[in-house]
């Protein structure tokens, strides 16, 4: 009876618990690199990794904020001083086991420079974004990063009209991130009606750089972002199209 439900895998394969630790930011750079090496040789684990990632993305996209019972905890606590809660964008609940047909597993890039990736939710479907992905208004994007060591991260965009904005973080300075592979960032972005090519720039920095001057530089120069000292840069390009029903 029990053996009918156990997913057989070789002893060297990565368990779900290990994947969960990885995506939860619990592993160090050496451990992540070891997993990346195994994944480069193991199709079974690449498929399982994508399944788990898709479940995480769906869970997050369907519930873009922390649940009320968590955000309102401080307000409900019987402390002498009532405090207002700060809403942190993030995850939530939903998504049973969805063992959907998976797209071809993309290559795993755990070596080298830190970089961004993203997932797209359109209607009920979630897929991993590709270079020059064609997007429409209403698509929701969820960014993820891979970094072998902790950084401060800011994600900026320059749309087709030359307007710069920050996708991440919500605050004024780049936000601290732990080392990890395909670590999902807490909030999803819903695309507006604007069309054209959009550059999405991830800045992985040693310090908490200010976002506003970077946005100004991006808008002013339109093409090249003056890379701040101590930062590496990763760039994605997506193409936003008018929706044609």
């Amino acid at each position, binding site marked *: *009876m*029990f*053996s*009918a*439900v*156990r*997913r*057989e*895998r070789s*002893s060297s394969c990565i*368990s*779900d*618990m*290990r994947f*969960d*630790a990885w*995506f*939860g*930011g*619990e592993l160090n750079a050496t451990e992540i690199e070891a997993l990346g090496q195994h994944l480069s040789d193991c199709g079974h684990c690449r498929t399982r990794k994508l399944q*788990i990632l898709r*479940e*995480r993305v769906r*869970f*997050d996209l369907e519930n873009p904020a*922390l*649940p009320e*019972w*968590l*955000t309102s*905890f*401080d307000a409900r*606590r019987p402390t002498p001083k009532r*405090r*207002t*809660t*700060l809403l*942190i964008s*993030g*995850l*939530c*609940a*939903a*998504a*049973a*086991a969805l*063992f959907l047909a998976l797209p071809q597993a993309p290559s795993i890039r755990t070596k080298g420079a830190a970089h961004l990736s993203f997932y797209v939710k359109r209607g009920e479907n979630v897929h991993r974004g590709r270079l020059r992905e064609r997007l429409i208004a209403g698509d929701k994007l969820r960014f993820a990063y891979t970094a072998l060591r902790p950084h401060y991260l800011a994600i900026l965009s320059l749309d087709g009209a030359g307007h710069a904005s920050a996708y991440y973080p919500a605050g004024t300075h780049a936000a601290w991130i732990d080392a990890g592979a395909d670590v999902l960032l*807490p909030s999803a972005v819903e695309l507006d009606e604007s069309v054209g090519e959009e550059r999405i720039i991830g800045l992985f920095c040693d310090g908490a750089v200010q976002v506003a001057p970077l946005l100004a530089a991006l808008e002013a120069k339109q093409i090249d972002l003056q890379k701040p000292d101590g930062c590496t840069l990763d760039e994605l390009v997506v193409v936003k199209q008018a929706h044609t029903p």
Partner: protein
Amino acid sequence: MQSRRSAQVADMYRRHAASVYRRACALLGNEADAREVLQDLFVSLLERPEQFAGGSSLQTFLYSATTHACLNRLRNQRNRARLLGERTDPEEKHAPHEGDALVHVREVLRQMPNDLAQVAVYYFVDGLSHQEIAELMGCSRRRVGNLVERATVWGRSQEEPCSAQ
């Protein structure tokens, strides 16, 4: 301002809620119960943060806490049904994509001694290695091997006998 404690739990939730929910769904077979387990677990961390003292990794703590919560819930469902004179219907609530195997496993888990049920979840449902289970349960690999063997025997004893031809 958000308190330090709730900010920490919010960060834990952001990083681990999806995996807690996925496992709870698999173990309980329905989303409503899985959501309740998810909520109960993180609310208990808000109310009693000392239960995760940092002696193990957060991932280890959450796997263990989720397993306990789900097993308790399965047993409570059985007890409630028994007290109300109802029959626990294995077909009642499980997700439509599931095969019969997991439904029957859930029924057996409801009746197993706790240590066997835990090891059955980790080994058969989660597919963990003996080493990983030993770390989760804080015991030796030898002990895990023994528990897996006993759980297997228990599971076999619950299978319906083949009809003699």
